[in-house]
């Protein structure tokens, strides 16, 4: 049994894992619990581990209640909702010592009692729901809702908050409000009467979520596209990027219809494949509309040919790569950061692309906007490198806000008047010394017409096979890439703060950020101080080189097997690669903080540190 000291520790600081079968309505029940805790002012992080399947396979949903606001996986499980018979044995094993397991005791299972270091609780959910509801499907759905009710009782989640949430969710279907609340209360009352409520891991009101929202990165990115003024979206459905376009389309249906005619001020085109999706984006961008395509790794593979064209023909183009586990089909519903090298150098020939690395939904929003500005300013593809963890999980982040004074940077596009004033229009001449030429849009004037081509061309846009003429253009593209390094978002430095700079550095990117920041705090507790640089874009700015030069040992934390960020740093900075040490997490689940702590301590040989007892286990 858990002791009192341990129990007190877990007020507003614990993990609940729901083990479900997918397609049984578990997602909405899980979301209900997560949001209710959030509404009680307690920071929370929800992560969904789901199968590539529509119905019938195991799925887990993990809610981390975190008064400190740590959004990464902790690696603990304090309360397991073992609702899936198929995965009972694994779920029992995964509960942290001193934790609790709740299961459907309609069918008592003595095997669950095999562990003596956890407490097993039973609620006959199936029996309760079979008695209270009609219809097989309805009973299955309500079982999960009923379970949420029991969890509310165990965790001391306020029933009134849940009632409000259910009312909001089914505002247009009042019958469902009644049914859902009936199921909630069934579970809630049963638990209150028969179980030791509340558990030591429980929720108490805080005021730590004010000004924040729970939102997924794909929705935030779609909002970014909307506010950036994108009018054309093209895509081929692929997990985990599909919800980005679904959100964009829904937002456009609401906010982009002409108030008078009802006609659409946007076009969403479902392409036949990713080759066509990026082709549509390139064609539209070439013609002066802001266009984008969301996709994932397999889609990027197909887009490679066109990415090279857009790079060489200098056409703006915005792509979102919501990364998932590869290679090939891989594990489509699991997360990784495994497309860095693929995207940085996509396509044949000498190509390098601008990449942005959002760390959370808030950055998905802002970087979506920046991506369009950069693509049009630089006349080149820009790839926003999100991942499944950011894209599909709900993250607590500050409310997204907009400045109505903002206007898009459409880059060097000459108007009809500017063309008229020109002696002659020359498409690829570097007039400003920044490597970025001027372009015109079709329809503007016969004087400004030019021929866009992926074949060899000179700086006037004409076909060439002349060596010198070819080189003038590709060398200017290098100048442009150097300009890009000055325009992209700078890397974020954390530390040293009041303490002297450390000889130890850590570089990471994207969704590793929350785990790294939590790990840094834990490591400080071990007496290990690290300076932390989070790169936010490729090409790297000068600050990345400076950071690498200033530290004798630099850990590079990323979520892929082959150390792709480390490779990029080695290739694209002056760093001595012998001082880079990789910390690689690539099992498909989001990187936990404890993993970073352990690997750093192990690499340092324990010399500087005590054992990692407080870091928590990880799977």
């Amino acid at each position, binding site marked *: 049994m858990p002791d009192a000291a341990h129990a007190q520790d877990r007020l507003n600081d614990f993990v609940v894992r729901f083990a479900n079968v997918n397609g049984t309505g578990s997602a909405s029940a899980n979301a209900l619990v997560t949001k209710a805790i959030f509404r009680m002012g307690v920071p929370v992080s929800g992560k969904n581990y789901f199968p590539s399947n529509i119905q019938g396979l195991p799925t887990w949903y993990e809610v981390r209640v975190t008064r400190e606001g740590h959004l990464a996986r902790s690696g603990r499980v304090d309360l397991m909702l073992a609702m899936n018979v198929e995965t009972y044995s694994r779920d029992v094993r995964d509960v942290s010592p001193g934790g609790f397991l709740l299961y459907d005791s309609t069918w008592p299972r003595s095997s669950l009692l095999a562990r003596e270091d956890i407490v097993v609780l039973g609620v006959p959910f199936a029996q309760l729901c079979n008695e209270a509801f009609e219809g097989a499907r309805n009973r299955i759905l309500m079982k999960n809702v009923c379970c949420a009710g029991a969890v509310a009782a165990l965790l001391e989640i306020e029933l009134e908050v849940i009632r409000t949430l259910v009312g909001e969710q089914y505002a247009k279907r009042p019958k469902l409000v009644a049914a859902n609340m009936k199921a909630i209360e069934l579970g809630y009352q049963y638990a209150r009467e028969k179980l030791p409520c509340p558990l030591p891991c429980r929720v108490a009101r805080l005021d730590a979520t004010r000004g924040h929202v729970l939102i997924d990165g794909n929705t935030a990115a779609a909002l970014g596209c909307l506010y950036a003024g994108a*009018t054309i979206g093209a895509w081929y459905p692929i997990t985990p990027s599909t919800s980005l376009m679904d959100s964009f389309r829904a937002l456009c249906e609401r906010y982009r219809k002409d108030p008078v005619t*009802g*006609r659409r001020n946007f*076009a969403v085109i479902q392409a036949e494949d990713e080759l066509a999706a990026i082709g549509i984006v390139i064609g539209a961008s070439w013609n002066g509309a802001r266009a984008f395509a969301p996709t994932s790794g397999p889609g990027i593979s197909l887009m490679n040919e066109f990415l090279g064209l857009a790079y060489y023909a200098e056409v703006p183009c915005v792509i979102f790569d919501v990364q998932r586990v590869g290679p090939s089909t891989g594990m489509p519903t699991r997360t990784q950061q495994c497309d860095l090298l693929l995207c940085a150098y996509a396509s044949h020939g000498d190509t390098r692309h601008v990449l942005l690395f959002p760390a959370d939904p808030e950055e998905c929003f802002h970087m979506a906007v920046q991506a369009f500005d950069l693509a049009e300013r630089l006349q080149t593809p820009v790839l926003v490198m999100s991942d499944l963890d950011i894209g599909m999980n709900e993250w607590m982040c500050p409310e997204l806000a*907009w400045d109505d004074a903002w206007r898009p940077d459409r880059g060097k596009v000459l108007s009809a008047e500017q063309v008229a004033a020109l002696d002659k229009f020359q498409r690829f001449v570097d007039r400003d010394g920044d490597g970025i030429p001027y372009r015109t849009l079709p329809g503007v004037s016969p004087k400004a017409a030019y021929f866009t081509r992926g074949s060899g061309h000179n700086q006037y846009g004409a076909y060439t096979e002349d060596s010198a003429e070819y080189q003038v253009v590709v060398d200017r593209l290098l100048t442009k890439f150097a300009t890009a390094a000055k325009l992209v978002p700078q890397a974020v430095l954390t530390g040293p703060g009041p303490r002297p700079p450390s000889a130890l550095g850590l570089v990471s990117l994207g969704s590793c950020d929350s785990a790294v920041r939590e790990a840094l705090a834990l490591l400080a507790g071990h007496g290990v101080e690290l300076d932390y640089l989070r790169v936010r874009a490729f090409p790297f700015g000068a600050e990345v080189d400076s950071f690498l030069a200033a530290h004798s040992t630099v850990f590079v934390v990323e979520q892929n097997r082959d150390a792709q960020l480390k490779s990029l740093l080695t290739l694209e900075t002056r760093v001595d690669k012998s001082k880079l040490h990789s910390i690689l997490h690539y099992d498909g689940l989001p990187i936990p903080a404890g993993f970073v702590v352990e690997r750093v301590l192990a690499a340092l040989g324990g010399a500087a540190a005590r054992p990692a007892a407080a870091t928590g286990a990880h799977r």
Partner: protein
Amino acid sequence: MTSITKPRVAHPSLPRNAAGLTRRDYEGAMSTLCAGCGHDSVTAAIVEACWGLDLRPEQLVKLSGIGCSSKTTAYFVGGAHGFNSVHGRMPSIASGANAANRELYYIGVSGDGDSLSIGLGQLAHAIRRNVNMLYLIENNGVYGLTKGQFSASADVGSTARKGDINQQPPIDPVLLALTLGATFVARSFSGDKRQLVPLIEAGLRHRGFALIDVLSPCVTFNDHEGSTKSYAFTREHYHAAVEADFVARHKEISVDYAEGTATSVQLHDDSQVRLRKLDASYDPTDRDAAYSYVAGKLAQGEHVTGLIHVDSSAAREFHDINETTEVPLNRLPYEQLSPGAAALAKIMGRYR
């Protein structure tokens, strides 16, 4: 090799169209195709059609993929923006460009390799999307730029320059387009300018996807080995390096036939193409009848030419289906696109 600038001398007596322009104003760079190439005749027909339609050059957008045919977009209407994209992917570029600005005229030039092999999927889906554009396939049954492989439009039993006999059934772009619901389907012959020019004009004016399959012979690579009427003798002497300069200037193929009669045309490669003019009673608005008619004649080795099918009354092009606003999307001011800060604050309410 760099592109050749064509001298631009307009004689004062050249006729001007309603836009005040002469035919010379619709020309482009000098063609680098083989002398006598059928594609150059198609280029000339496009020039004639654009002049005849009184288009201002900047109203036209030229799109192409890769191949001999796709090079030709550089050879007409130099005052129009052009996009020579990648192999088989022009339809997606055209779809995006058209989505961004619905007011311009889009002309895509492709070939049988570009459209029926590597780009078959994109062609099919541009037809399904009913993109408002004219799509020309300059169809010669052969890969010219890679020197003579069969294309997907080569007929069973036709012989390659090196003697290989094609065994695979052809894909006929006309039957394909009819199957996929294209609303303007035509076939013509590069040597028949009198038929082709009005078809191009009609295709550009058609609202929706207009496909014209233009039989356009390859003078260099689609030739029987050992044919007495071919350039076999010439090729035996210049086989190692077949360059455009080595091909003697051919007389342009031309054909002229009365309505309702089938005609044999001898191509440069000595093979026969039977051309059958549509009879006066033919109803091009009946898709099923058109399909049966074309398929029946194909089985007899005859190519039906002319405006095979047109459906302009019921045609709903991409923007009709999408219910896009009349103002081109690329011209909508940002103020009309941003929902504003207050709306975002309201949206955030859903996520609290």
